């Protein structure tokens, strides 16, 4: 009975409930000049929204993006090999769906989001043109299959759960080289050279490669900068400060133009590899500084306690400091990855054609010359939407991780 009595004390403070009209009156129409400001702004917003929507509906340039969807997604990747990017997408979605079933939470949110987008695009994809000589699945069928694959593998993994946890982690680690092999060929598959790659495929590849490869390098640099060995520390400081003092464009130019002059047989190094190397080196320097911030936020007592328990330096770093440091800087790292994803559009200046480059090309196709106003507004809006979907997904993931960390601290 006593416990019942103590209950009300933990109730939250009552929220003030006000009706819609009361809220409007209080916030928007409180004084005569607020009424005028509200009305004027409402008119402006209404005008802007209606004219934008009516432009969206009547704009003549939408066919440019849709008829060139193949260019936007894969650029000049051979039509007869288009099944390979599809296979890679399928592989990633399969792993994503399985992970969603095993871990749930954020992963499930992303999975269901991807499934919804796939299904939605699948409906739109009925309007996409069939490509001559296409041997891959038609766009709409592929997208519906993707949505089904995501949901199906999620349900499958719900039953298996713990049994596939470790195989799944290993599969994720192997998926990156596997995707490269599927896209590029080799091991019996005909080779599709990287100079034919482009569009969204290239953008994602550059971003993911940059993120995946710069992460270990950045962590090593951060640890090296805090090392007590002067040579390692000096090298890391020198590297980080050198790269951070130079714009990404310069690093890309270095990779694209100077590297072939230094190395024998300039043709031998792939242009895409050069871009990936430049982006990775650049991103690693910034990542190192972010991780160092996390490392410095850990109280010294933790390290001393670990040493007192008999852990050596490696164990202390791997088990005590690094996990906490990385957890602390997750939001910053995701912010950096979003920036990296968008920065990849700079590769246009070294002759790689990413999503932005493909869009620029579409705008320059002669057949749109007769379209009043050109097609650049519609085309660039489409790629802006594509960029937004990916960046927004990443920022949502970061938000969820942040929330989880905040909850685990209480």
């Amino acid at each position, binding site marked *: 009975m006593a416990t019942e009595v103590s209950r009300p004390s933990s109730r939250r403070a009552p929220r003030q409930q006000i009706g819609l009209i009361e809220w409007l009156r209080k916030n928007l129409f409180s004084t005569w000049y607020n009424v005028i400001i509200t009305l004027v702004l409402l008119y402006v917003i209404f005008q802007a929204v209606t004219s934008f929507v009516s432009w969206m509906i009547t704009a003549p340039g939408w066919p440019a993006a849709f008829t060139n969807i193949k*260019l936007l997604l894969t650029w*000049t990747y051979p039509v007869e090999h288009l099944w390979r990017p599809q296979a890679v997408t399928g592989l990633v979605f399969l792993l994503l769906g399985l992970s969603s079933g095993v871990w749930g939470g954020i992963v499930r949110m992303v999975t269901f989001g991807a499934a919804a987008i796939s299904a939605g695009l699948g409906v739109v994809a009925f309007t996409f043109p069939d490509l001559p000589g296409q041997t891959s699945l038609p766009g709409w069928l592929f997208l519906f299959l993707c949505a089904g694959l995501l949901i199906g593998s999620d349900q499958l993994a719900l039953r298996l759960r713990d049994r596939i946890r470790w195989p799944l982690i290993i599969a994720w680690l192997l998926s990156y080289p596997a995707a490269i092999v599927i896209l590029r060929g080799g091991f019996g598959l005909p080779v599709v050279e990287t100079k034919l790659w482009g569009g969204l495929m290239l953008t994602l590849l550059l971003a993911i490669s940059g993120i995946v490869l710069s992460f270990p390098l950045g962590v090593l640099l951060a640890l090296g900068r805090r090392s007590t060995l*002067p040579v390692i520390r000096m090298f890391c400081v020198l590297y980080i400060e050198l790269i951070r003092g130079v714009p990404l464009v310069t690093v890309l130019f270095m990779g694209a133009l100077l590297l072939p*002059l230094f190395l024998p047989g*300039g043709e031998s190094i792939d242009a895409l590899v050069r871009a990936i190397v430049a982006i990775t080196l650049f991103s690693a320097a910034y990542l190192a500084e972010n991780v160092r911030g996390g490392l410095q936020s850990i109280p010294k007592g933790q390290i001393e306690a670990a040493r007192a328990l008999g852990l050596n330096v490696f164990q202390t770093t791997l088990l005590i400091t690094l996990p906490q440091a990385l957890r602390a800087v997750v939001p910053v790292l995701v912010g950096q990855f979003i920036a990296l994803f968008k920065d990849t559009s700079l590769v246009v*200046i070294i*002759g790689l054609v990413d999503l932005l480059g493909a869009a620029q090309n579409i*705008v*320059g196709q002669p057949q749109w010359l007769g379209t009043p*106003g050109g097609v650049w507004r519609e085309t660039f809006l489409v790629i802006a939407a594509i960029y937004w979907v990916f960046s927004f997904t990443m920022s949502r993931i970061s938000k969820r991780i942040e929330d989880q960390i905040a909850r685990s601290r209480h």
Partner: protein
Amino acid sequence: MRKHIILVLAGILSFVLAACGGQAQQAPTTAPAQPATTAPEQPTAAPAPTAAPAATSAPAGGTSAQPAAGGVIERILSRGRLICGVNNNPLPGFASVDSAGVYRGFDIDFCRAVAAALFDDPTKIDFRPLSAQERFTALQSGEIDVLIRNSTWTLGRDGALGLDWAPTTFYDGQGMMVRKDSGIETLEDMNGATICVQTGTTTELNLADQFRARGLTFTPVVFPDGDSTRAAYDAGQCDGFTTDKSGLISSLTLLSNPGDHKILDVTMSKEPLGPAVRQGDPQWFDAVRWIVFATFQAEEYGITSQNLDQFLNSDVPEIRRFLGLEGELGAGIGLPNDFAVRIIRHVGNYAEIYNRNLGPDTPFNLPRGLNALYTDGGLLYSPPFR
């Protein structure tokens, strides 16, 4: 402590220098047929231009039609594909990719002509999109075989960059865009007109020179960059808009109603655009040069991809020589004797290339102007094929 840092810095620097030096020495031994060997020749490349005519004027000396050993042609043939540097920024009509992922355009067709001459197959070609900044470096480092990327031939580039320019395929120049309903046909009709022009460019100076030479007055409306210049013209602030003709064509796509505008048939400056190759292989330079000439000559003879088969039965000696039915004309430049036939069959003569990409049936409808045969008052002139 400071002494320490300087010591470490010096150590790292010397290490890096040593590493670089080591690589530079290795280069010639590891890659004999690669750019590294020709790089040292560049400072002493002065005899190259004199060697080139010698090679063409004495085809009788070399009886075999084989390309020179270790030359660019041999490298391309053994690779099985031509690597052609093209524009990565789409220039409508000159280079862009269509919705099926196929490169199309005026520059692209000349890449295809080179591939057709070498392989009898215009698809054996890798396009390497290049930005304006990296185009010449890519050529110098041997990453591409030939650069066909609307690059202006100037003395500075020809000399200082170690490049050789094949004959001009497109005589670009400053042009003038006006509204169709303005009734303007020539520059003389523009007396007293307001003209949108980008400030600080040679374009602005050319405009003033051209109008003064004709005794005309005009009001310049200047802008710091190309986009705002175009936007101002589009908004009706000016009667005319001037920049390079190829630039006018591409800005046409961005105007709010492209069909209302036209480009006048006047050229106010010299911008010769043509294929460029790296200095150091005269045979390859000759091959590209004569491939371009072959498209001119085919137009002059009236040989097109349609009527080629009739000409193959011709009895006229000069046509038989041109088509490789007689003589060994290709041998001296490392090409098969029928290279002109291959070009015409797969790509066409100059007129076909021009009309396909820029001519009356395209949205551009650009008059030939200087890009007509010398017999029609243009500048296209091929030396004799004999």
